[in-house]
């Protein structure tokens, strides 16, 4: 249990650092940037403490906001994703979620992919709505969400494959 906590703290710091130093400077076509830092929320242990996840996500988003001068948009988006994570689990994995046998960082199956896809879409949509904060930008919001989602998912999957634990 203790090592799981350490792994999560390490992941929190590492993902934030990588996001701020590398991915925030990536502007594909001028406005598409990936946000793989939400992998922290996606990879959080299934049977972990739920309140802990909510608080950690809030802090994660708040630090991102501090570095990108964006008020509270990352904090809100992360919080929404963290809160709806169990429902997305239920939707993507069905019954096996109840028995908590789900392991995320493993070979990509349709269930795992749909879970990551849903999580990223929810996070990005919230993020870009709050960022534009005007309904006249709705077309812009949708385009940004779509393109950034594709970008983020590709990078998330690459990262998951790169740091796949070799335990079992």
């Amino acid at each position, binding site marked *: 249990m203790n090592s799981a906590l350490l792994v999560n703290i390490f992941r929190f710091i590492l993902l934030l650092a990588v996001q*701020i*130093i590398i991915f925030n400077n990536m*502007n594909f076509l*001028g*406005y*598409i*940037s990936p946000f793989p830092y939400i992998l922290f929320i996606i990879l959080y242990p299934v049977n972990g403490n*739920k*309140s802990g996840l*909510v*608080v950690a996500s*809030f802090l994660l*988003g*708040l630090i991102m*906001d*501090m*570095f*990108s*001068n*964006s*008020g*509270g*948009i990352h*904090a*809100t988006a992360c*919080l*929404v994703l*963290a*809160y709806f994570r169990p429902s997305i689990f239920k939707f993507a994995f069905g019954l096996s979620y109840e028995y908590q046998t789900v392991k995320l960082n493993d070979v990509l199956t349709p269930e795992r992919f749909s879970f990551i896809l849903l999580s990223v879409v929810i996070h990005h949509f919230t993020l870009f709505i*709050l*960022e*534009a*904060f005007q309904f006249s*930008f709705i077309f*812009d919001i949708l385009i940004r969400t779509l393109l950034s989602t594709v970008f983020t998912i590709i990078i998330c999957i690459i990262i998951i494959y790169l740091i796949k634990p070799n335990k079992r």
Partner: protein
Amino acid sequence: MQQIFNFIFKNSNRLLFLLLLGISLSLTIQSHSFHRSKIISSANFLSGGVYEKVNNLNEYLNLKTQNDALALENAKLKSILFNRKDTTAIKKLDSIKGVKPDDIVVSKVIHNSYNVHENYLTLNSGELQGVKPDMGVINSLGIVGIIENTSPNYSTVISILNKKSQINAKIKKSNHFGSLIWNGKSTGFVQLVDVPRLAAIRKGDTIVTGGQSVIFPENINIGTIDKIEKDNQTNYYTITVKLFNDMTNLGHVYIIKRKDREEITNLEKREKDE
């Protein structure tokens, strides 16, 4: 009482979520609605320090372009120096028109954003160097933005590529003025609105800062007219301005301190009070 406690225990996760959601939403709304009261900004010890370290690294990669830009500016300054008519009298004004040399703080952009609708820059000089909110920021090519938040060693700047930014600007040859805004679309272009239709303007005319602003001195370059649109309902032009500056590539900038600014604002305030 028992039931209230039960309710709280049962829904502790949801209540926690709602509480934090309230905090983050209020931070978001506050950052969108007020001009300068941001609680979470990158002008602080942690993020300023990290950005400075990262920027030091990046600088090595950009040394050549920065050198070229500085050499170009040097050449320009030299040409002004050598072409002066009276070399014995010490001229009071610097080459940046209308600004006295002691009013300038040289600073460096350590973080730059240009891909969202509200863009901010972070600079590596702050209160200790005399930087205060509402000072103008320019570089050798044109205006960059306005100081928003300061900490002892860092400051944040509202970039002209920000929906909240609104700067008084005029057409250089005719003195008709309007306000400069950004529609959030392209990083190379800003919009000049509220220019009366009487103004004789042409594509390619230069846009400079106007004299009404207490933040920028008059006649600092902004850009050239790229497209002119007439608004049929109002009697105003909407002009698309192509910036001289490449806002995606900023290095050294100058922060302008205006000594008469306080005097002007005080005077205007007194007028209003009476």
